[in-house]
């Protein structure tokens, strides 16, 4: 199979002559039809238009880096497809763009997040955390002046059109501080409409009562100035926060208790006694997440038990499936046996059945109270297949055996049949027993063929999310742990649960776990493949 490659390699090393270059170019011109040219121009035009639009939108939202990246990539693509050369790039670019964004970039981004405190309570900038805090602590100022209010709407977004006690008209909305308006339509000293906006009538205000009552329109850019809120949709009052923000000192002061919360670099305003004001903001925390995973007791203990179980699970799932698969392959690898075809068809079915469905079906069959295994097979037994820690682990291995043995059976059959007969014949002539032949000849040869697949299977099971998550959900849950983990969770399901399940999400910690998984799998596989290479050379 490799021969053609080698031949071509040799051929290319001699530099192409001028003549052959010209011939190639001529052939190129003759070959490219006008239909293709039109297709090329139209496709490029559409892509350019989309990219230009995207870049404009990105510029408007101040995402300069992203905008420049979009333009640069589009520019390169145009250059590649419009120029004469760059043939390999023409074929590689489409796939590369997706690869760069959704595999390489996200891998780097994972590493970046692992070094931040990104998660619930820390998901935005300091500025928006300050705003959110000020808003959440707002109270109506006694005796504050009343603002005449008209609620207006544009594109589904409500705004306050207010007339302050001095008669000045201003317009603002959520996160859009009040701005003076000159062309408002007045009615008896109160602004009632403004061009470009729809004025809400009484019934519309009633219909959107909740949304309007929740609105807080900042009076100015300084959060300490407070904001306007309305209890009834017709008059707005000034609400001031009981928190006071001092930007220069970076402190938040609770005006009622006098507690000073300061920014001590942990991503949240913290009082001297350690209480934090939530929400905080996102900061880079260095190796904190990794340190937490390995030292903080409430995370370390579950993390290490998950780590251990991940290895145990991955090892046993490969081992059991391979053992059964090999056994069956040997059993059925007998020319005298009839109707192997039908057995094989039946045995392949678990492999063809979608894995997530199998796990769910087994979860039903293993249900403690109503499941088929307890109720019918064991005549009404009450065995906690999925809710006892050790039985759950056993059940997972059993179901994985069901899922995985057909694959091992297939590859073992293939590998057995590729072992030449004459080797065995020779051994037989020399008087070796069937077991000896198997042990010293077939098995080593078989291993050479399947070892890479076994390693791949190990790596796959190391991250076998579907089986664990669908069958036990990682449970039974470890209630003592600070992170949401159970007895059968493996690392990847732990990542998922830390990041996406439950009310508290810790993206930073989850990403740190991802990085740890990657390092483990990469190390193991590099070592293992070195070993198997050695194995191959030996034989």
């Amino acid at each position, binding site marked *: *199979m490799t021969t*053609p490659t080698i031949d071509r390699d040799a051929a290319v090393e001699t530099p192409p002559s001028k003549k052959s270059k010209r011939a190639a170019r001529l*052939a*190129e*011109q003759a*070959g490219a039809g006008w239909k293709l040219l039109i297709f090329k121009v139209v496709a490029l035009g559409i892509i350019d238009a989309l990219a230009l639009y995207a870049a404009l939108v990105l510029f408007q939202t101040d995402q300069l880096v992203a905008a420049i990246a979009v333009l640069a990539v589009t520019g390169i693509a145009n250059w590649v497809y419009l120029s004469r050369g760059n*043939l390999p790039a*023409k*074929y*590689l670019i*489409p*796939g590369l763009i*997706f690869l760069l*964004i*959704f595999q390489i970039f996200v*891998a780097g981004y*994972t590493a970046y997040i692992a070094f931040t405190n990104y998660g619930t309570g820390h998901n935005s900038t300091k500025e928006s955390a300050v705003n959110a805090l000020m808003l959440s602590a707002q109270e109506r100022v006694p005796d504050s002046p009343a603002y005449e209010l008209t609620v207006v709407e544009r594109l589904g977004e409500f705004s306050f059109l207010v007339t302050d006690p001095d008669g000045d008209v201003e317009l603002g909305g959520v996160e859009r501080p009040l701005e003076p308006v000159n062309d408002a339509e007045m009615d008896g000293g109160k602004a009632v409409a403004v061009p470009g906006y729809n004025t809400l009538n009484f019934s519309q205000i009633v219909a959107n009562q909740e949304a309007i009552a929740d609105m807080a329109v900042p009076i100015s850019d300084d959060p300490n100035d407070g904001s306007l809120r309305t209890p009834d949709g017709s008059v707005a009052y000034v609400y001031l926060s009981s928190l006071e923000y001092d930007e220069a000192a970076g402190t938040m002061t609770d005006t009622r208790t006098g507690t000073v919360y300061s920014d001590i670099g942990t991503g949240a305003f913290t009082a001297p006694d350690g209480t934090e004001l939530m929400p905080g903001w996102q900061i880079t925390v260095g190796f904190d997440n990794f340190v937490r995973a390995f030292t903080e007791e409430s995370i370390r203990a579950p993390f290490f038990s998950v780590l251990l179980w991940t290895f145990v699970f991955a090892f046993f799932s490969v081992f059991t499936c391979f053992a059964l698969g090999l056994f*069956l392959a040997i*059993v*059925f690898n007998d*020319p*005298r*046996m009839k109707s*192997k*075809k039908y*057995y*094989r068809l*039946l045995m*392949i079915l678990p*492999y*063809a*059945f979608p*894995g997530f*469905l*199998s796990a*769910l*079906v087994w979860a039903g*069959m293993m*249900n403690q109270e*109503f499941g088929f295994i307890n109720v019918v097979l064991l005549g009404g037994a009450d065995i906690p297949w999925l809710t006892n820690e050790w039985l759950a682990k056993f059940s997972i291995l059993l179901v994985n055996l069901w899922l995985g043995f*057909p*694959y091992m059976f*297939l590859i073992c*059959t*293939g590998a057995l*049949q*590729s072992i030449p007969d004459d080797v065995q014949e020779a051994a037989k002539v020399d008087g070796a027993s069937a077991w000896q032949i198997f042990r010293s000849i077939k098995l080593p040869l078989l291993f050479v063929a399947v070892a*890479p697949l076994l390693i*791949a299977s190990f790596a*796959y099971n190391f991250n076998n999310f*579907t089986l664990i998550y*669908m069958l036990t959900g990682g449970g039974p849950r470890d209630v003592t742990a600070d992170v949401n983990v159970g007895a059968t969770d493996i690392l990847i399901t732990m*990542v998922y649960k830390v990041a*996406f399940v439950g009310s508290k999400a810790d*993206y930073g910690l989850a990403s740190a776990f991802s990085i740890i998984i*990657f390092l483990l799998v*990469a190390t193991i596989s590099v070592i*293992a*493949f070195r070993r*198997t290479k050695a194995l191959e050379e030996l034989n």
Partner: protein
Amino acid sequence: MSNLTPHTGKSTLEDFGDSVGRAEALIGAPGAIDGFDAKEGAGVRGEGPLPRRKFKRYFRETGWRHIVGVVVAAFAIFPLLYVFSASLNPGGTLLTANGLFGNVSLESYLALFQSETHPYGAWFVNTLVIGLVTAAGTVILGALAAYSFSRMRFTGRRFGLTTLLVVQMFPQMLAMVAIFLLMVQISDIFPAIGLNTQIGLIMVYLGGALGVNTYLMYGFFNTIPSSIDEAAKIDGAGHARIFFTIILRLVAPILAVVGLLSFIGTSSEFVLASIILIDPEKQTLAVGLYKFISDEFSKNWSLFAAGAVLAAILPVALFLALQRYIVGGLTAGSVK
């Protein structure tokens, strides 16, 4: 995807070995088995003089193999029979499903399409659309890349091939948090392709289109003699014409294999789909059926079972079809 993956090679390390060998293994193994089947019956028959002895010998040689076969086949097939029987049990719970085939009706299959909170029909269509588009995209992107790696020699070629291998060590599933946050940011600016959109999910899947698939195809492309495209070049065909009209036809088997594996893989992918698709009517079967089961576990078991049977028919059929397809050696006779 779970049980398929070691075979399809979506896992991290799959391709550390010789990729060409892998393609060969994939293509060779089932073929070898089939070839072997053809021989069956040609084996030696025991011919003892007494019937009793004959049976003993028969049992020692092949009889026990049938017993093993029956036991294993029962183990393999039972959960599938169970779910099929449960799906025919109208309005059945987990408990009533235990009476195998006691009650047969197609009610559950009809009820499946009438639930408003669990839009099974939408899930089915979504899964099909996402799976087909991703499979098509994967085949196209992978074939383009494999062609250039196989037929062209350029600086960075070796580096590119190695990079693809290394990148595969960090599977997309590990980057789920980053992918989620990236999609959140995209949807702030372009809601049409961000979080909770199927286009977004497809784009994420296409991020993994190169890599293993390219390797699989690259190995196959290499088996097609380059004398074919050289001949075409002499006849005046450009590279695009060679690629689209000659090469793609010759490598059709591997395109079919990659496409089918990608379809089967994406149609049962759970992690990314569950993160990116939020609205029930936008979800796929894997996400929807899981939510359905975790919401009301034992109550609507027959509904779930019906959903599972319908969801499995296509992948199982494709898989069985794929097995035979691989055997075909389209390129074998193409060199004149």
